């Protein structure tokens, strides 16, 4: 039976649509979009008072399968993603084994077909084992379904390797995503270097450990002319390199996480749910990131959903792994921190979750006849409180437990099926 999403405010940045419309879905495609659609028989989803957006895409997450199923699986991770309004998620290759060959890529896609609530788009490793040596089987992974390449968890080891990966991937039409970190500067660090790290006696990671590597990558993009996407960008200096690259017409993009535009290093105590990499930045950096989200120097919001089993996080701060979960709070943080505060328009927020990440991947995300029926329906007013204990993720490592929000995902539609409904 067709599905009619009725009377929602359709916000589509790609099609520049902002109107009260009905969306008729048949099978896994959008059949028609229009006002007051007449349909003989259809399942009706009443979206009155709600926003209907193209399906959200998360460029950066960790589903932990294969290898670390105690922390997360494709099934639990994508269920959490669906609850967060995401219809497609890009999972990073730092699994066990590393997704550096087509058989791992295929197994992820098969596991997703069997158990995932949303689309799973694997990111393949750039180098074998992400060890920074020989190139991984990139074209085979692409054929198997990989949408991008990254050694995430670590930076692509050297400028020389970066050059080779960029050039090769460009010939294959794949973006290269880099986790930018100059390891010799960040070694031993557990939080952003600054007054707070000195106060807490925690080893600092200077902001420049990120921007030194961003500078290297931007210079390499200048050398190769290839596509470059900077993952979880967190500092003003990094953003300035990206702006410079964009002004030069380079194909350089970047993403920012909800925690980096919400929290700062001042929020860090000894709670390991505030430990992530890159670490929470200074107030000035946070301000710059919000500026970048507003002025389009930032292309996407990505969660960097990084689940860790409670036992691994329930340890001393300097011994805990980096990372926090992020799917279920991403949109609400965007609404609370960016839209309700008047820093960016709602349409821009939707763009950062849809058309923005889609462009990075070289695809389209819009609400139009013939398009895949992936929709995110959300409220900008619904009041709710996030409880980590009730999360769909297997892990609980979030600094946002107990936080109250105005605005929430209300329904997630993937391939024409409602996979989540609040």
């Amino acid at each position: 039976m067709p599905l009619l999403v009725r009377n929602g405010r359709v916000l589509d940045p790609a099609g520049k649509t902002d109107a009260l419309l009905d969306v008729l879905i048949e099978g896994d495609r959008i059949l028609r979009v229009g006002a007051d659609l007449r349909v003989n028989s259809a399942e009706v989803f009443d979206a009155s008072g709600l926003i209907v957006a193209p399906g959200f895409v998360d460029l950066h997450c960790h589903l932990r399968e294969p290898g670390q199923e105690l922390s997360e699986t494709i099934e639990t991770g994508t269920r959490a993603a669906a609850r967060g309004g995401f219809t497609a998620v890009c999972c990073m290759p730092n699994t066990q084994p590393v997704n550096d060959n087509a058989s791992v890529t295929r197994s992820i896609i098969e596991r997703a077909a069997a158990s995932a609530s949303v689309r799973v788009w694997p990111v393949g490793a750039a180098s074998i084992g992400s060890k920074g040596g020989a190139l991984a089987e990139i074209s085979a992974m692409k054929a198997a379904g990989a949408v991008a390449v990254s050694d995430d968890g670590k930076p692509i080891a050297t400028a020389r390797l970066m050059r080779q990966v960029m050039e090769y991937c460009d010939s294959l039409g794949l973006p290269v995503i880099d986790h930018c970190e100059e390891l010799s500067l960040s070694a031993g660090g557990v939080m952003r270097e600054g007054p707070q790290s000195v106060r807490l006696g925690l080893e600092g990671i200077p902001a420049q450990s990120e921007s030194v590597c961003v500078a290297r990558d931007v210079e390499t993009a200048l050398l190769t002319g290839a596509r470059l996407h900077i993952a979880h960008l967190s500092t003003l200096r990094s953003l300035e390199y990206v702006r410079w690259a964009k002004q030069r017409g380079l194909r350089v993009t970047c993403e920012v996480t909800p925690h980096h535009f919400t929290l700062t290093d001042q929020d860090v105590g000894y709670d390991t749910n505030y430990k992530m990499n890159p670490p929470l930045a200074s107030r000035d950096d946070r301000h710059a990131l919000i500026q970048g989200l507003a002025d389009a120097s930032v292309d996407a919001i990505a969660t960097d959903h990084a689940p860790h089993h409670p036992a691994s996080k329930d340890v001393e701060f300097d011994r805990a792994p980096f990372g926090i979960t992020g799917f279920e709070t991403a949109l609400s943080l965007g609404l609370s921190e960016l839209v309700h505060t008047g820093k960016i328009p709602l349409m821009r927020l939707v763009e950062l979750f849809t058309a923005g990440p889609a462009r990075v991947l070289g695809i389209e995300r819009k609400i139009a006849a013939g398009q895949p029926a992936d929709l995110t329906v959300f409220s900008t007013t619904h009041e709710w409180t996030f409880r980590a204990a009730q999360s769909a993720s297997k892990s609980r490592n979030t600094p946002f437990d107990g936080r109250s929000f105005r605005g929430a995902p209300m329904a997630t539609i993937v391939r024409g099926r409602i996979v989540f409904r609040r």
Partner: protein
Amino acid sequence: MLERLPHLLGIESLSREQIEFFLDQAKPFQEFQLYPLKKLATLRGKTVALAFFEPSTRTRISFTTAASRLGADTMALQAEASSLKKGESLMDTVRTLEAMKPDAIVMRHSSSGAPHFVAERLEIPVLNAGDGTHEHPTQALLDALTIRDRAGRLESLNVTILGDILHSRVARSNIHLLGKFGARITLCGPSMWVPREVEGLAPQVRRTFSVDRALEGADVVMTLRVQTERIHEPALAPDEYIAGYQLTPERLRRAKPDALVMHPGPMIRGLEIDPAVADGPQSCVLEQVTNGLAVRMALLYHLVGGPPADAPHPAKD
């Protein structure tokens, strides 16, 4: 009268009044150290767990003696012998200790914040005996007691601290404590050990890389240990440190004539401090050790003595 603290994790969160209260409470225990018979029954039947996850001799002995003089029993966890080496988590180790029903846990750990982590998860008081590069509150209290006794006051002193400030928990706790009493604090050491951010730890903190300038007009000079077991980043040749920062009699002359010289110990004579200064009349090193006992007895009495914090007031009164 002071409301009982649940734990003692650091100096930063204490008020000036609380600090003064502990220094006052340490007074009778200072006198007690002179008694011919140094054994009280005040904490008889109480047990203090000593969990030292990092090697320590003097602080551990000081706490053991303080507990014993108050009549408490101690149970010690030897870091080397502990199951931590076998991969047991801090939480499991501490829970095991807790299952033996101690009345408090004195804890030293190489991770900053480890005592805070434990305090959040245990019912009993946690006393921080040094956490990573964060705080060492009992050291700062015993230093303050020593200064107050010798200088007659704690207010508005010129205090100079020499050494690796960035990695020193002793420096941090002392900066927090003396800063609350209006001290003008000068931090001095090789520049990479004295980053700009340390100036934000208390209101009147400045840094200088010239030892001569740092000592000018000082009322109190604290030399920190140059630690050989923890790696200073970057490592500095000992001769380089001695040439630039060793506290020598000549350099000390720039401080006030009656300036106090302090060292948290253990000290390496001839490295951070010249033996003539360490043994000179201005040195307070041994008083610091004795005062350590008094401060720790006062704190154990405060945290462990008396009824549990939630005990109802007995009806008979």
